[in-house]
C-alpha cells in the first residue's frame, strides 16, 4: 500500500511537471509603428482617413481594408532593413477612380532582445528613417527619424493629409 502511494505521488510528479504554466501575455512583444493621421490645414486635430487600406510591398493581404481611422499600428519586417507600405484612401464615394495612393517607407536597423521564457525574443528597431513619395495624399509627416522603436505608449509618427 505504501509503495502504491509512492508510485502515485511519483506519477503525479511526472505529469504535473509537464504542464505549461506560463503564457505570453504581452501583446505585441515586438513593437509596432503607430501612426496618427492629422488634418493638413488644422494641424492640431486628428483627421480620419476615409476608406483606408494599407498593404506592405511584396504582400498579397492587406492589414486594413476600407476602414475609417485616424490611428494605425503597423508591424515592420524584422528580416529586412526596409518596409514599404502602400496606403490608399478614398474621400469620395468609394469609386475606384477616386482612390488616392501613397507610399510610406521605413528604413531601420534591427536588434534582438530577450524578453522572457514564454514571450521569447523581441525585435527593437533602431535608427528609423521615414519617407513618402512626393505628389501623394500625404502632404507632410513628422518626425522624419526616430532613434528607436521599443514602446507602444504613444504614436511614433504624425501624418498630415
Amino acid at each position: 500500500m505504501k509503495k502504491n502511494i509512492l508510485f502515485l505521488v511519483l506519477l503525479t510528479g511526472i505529469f504535473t511537471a509537464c504542464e505549461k504554466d506560463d503564457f505570453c501575455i504581452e501583446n505585441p512583444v515586438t513593437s509596432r509603428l503607430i501612426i496618427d493621421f492629422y488634418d493638413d490645414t488644422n494641424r492640431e486635430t486628428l483627421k480620419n482617413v476615409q476608406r483606408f487600406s494599407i498593404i506592405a510591398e511584396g504582400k498579397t493581404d492587406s492589414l486594413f481594408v476600407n476602414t475609417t481611422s485616424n490611428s494605425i499600428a503597423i508591424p515592420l519586417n524584422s528580416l529586412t532593413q526596409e518596409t514599404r507600405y502602400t496606403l490608399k484612401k478614398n474621400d469620395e464615394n468609394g469609386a475606384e477612380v477616386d482612390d488616392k495612393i501613397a507610399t510610406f517607407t521605413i528604413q531601420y536597423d534591427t536588434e534582438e532582445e530577450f524578453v522572457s521564457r514564454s514571450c521569447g525574443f523581441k525585435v527593437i528597431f533602431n535608427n528609423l528613417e521615414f519617407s513618402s513619395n512626393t505628389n501623394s495624399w500625404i502632404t507632410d509627416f513628422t518626425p522624419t527619424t526616430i532613434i528607436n522603436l521599443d514602446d507602444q505608449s504613444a504614436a511614433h509618427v504624425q501624418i498630415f493629409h
Partner: protein
Amino acid sequence: MYKYFISICLLFVFAENFSQEQKKDNIIPQEKDTVVYKTNYGLRLGMDISRPIFSSLYSNYNGLEIVADYRIKKNVYIAAEIGFEEKTSIEDYSNSTSKGNYIRLGLNYNAYDNWLDMNNEIFVGYRYGFSLFNQTLNNYTTNVSDMENGSYFPAVLNTVGQASTSLNTHWSEFMIGIKAETLHNLFIGFSFSYKILMSVKDPENFMTLFSPGFNRIFESNTGFGINYTISYLIPFSKK
C-alpha cells in the same frame, strides 16, 4: 410531557457526564521500561531512481544522482546529493539545452518516533545547492506576431547555437520526505522539495531556463523537485 422534552434530554446529557468521571486514586505506578532498542548508525549510500526513469521516458532529459547521508544524532542526518543533469527546454520561441553538475548539502531531521528497533523516517530537511553548467541556445525565433494581425511578416528560425559556459546557480531547498527500511539496511525513500533561487548567472541576452539540480526556474525564481531513492546503509556502529 412534550413541553419538557428538551429539558429531559438535557438531564440525560448531564447524567452521562457524571458516569464518565473516573476515580483517580487507584492507578498503580508502573516501573519505567529500561530496555533500549539500538539502531544502526553509519553511512547510507544510494541513488535516485527517478532520474534514470525520466531519462528513458523523455528524449530531452538525461540525469543521474548519487545520494548519501550520515547519521550524527538519533534524529539528525548530514545529507548530500551529487548529480548530473542535461535538459533541453522546448519553449514556444526558443530551444535551449542546459547541461552540468550539481551538489546539494544539508541536514535531515527525522520527526518520526520509531517502534522498537525499527529505523524508518518521516523527515524534514534543508539543503544548500550549487550547480555549475553550460547552456546552449540551440535555436530561436523572434516573436514578431501580434493578436490583431497575426504574423504579417515572417520570422525565421535562427539556428546560431549560442553557447554560454560556466554559468552557475545557488539555491536553498526545503525538503519533506519519507524513508522506509524495506529489507535489512536497504531503504526506499521519497521526498519532495521546494527550492528558492539565491543567485543565478544568466547567459547574455538570454536567461537560464533550467539549472541542473534545481530543475526548471519559474518566474518567481522558485523551483520544485522530487527524489525517489534506493539506498543502502553501511553500518558503522549500533547505538
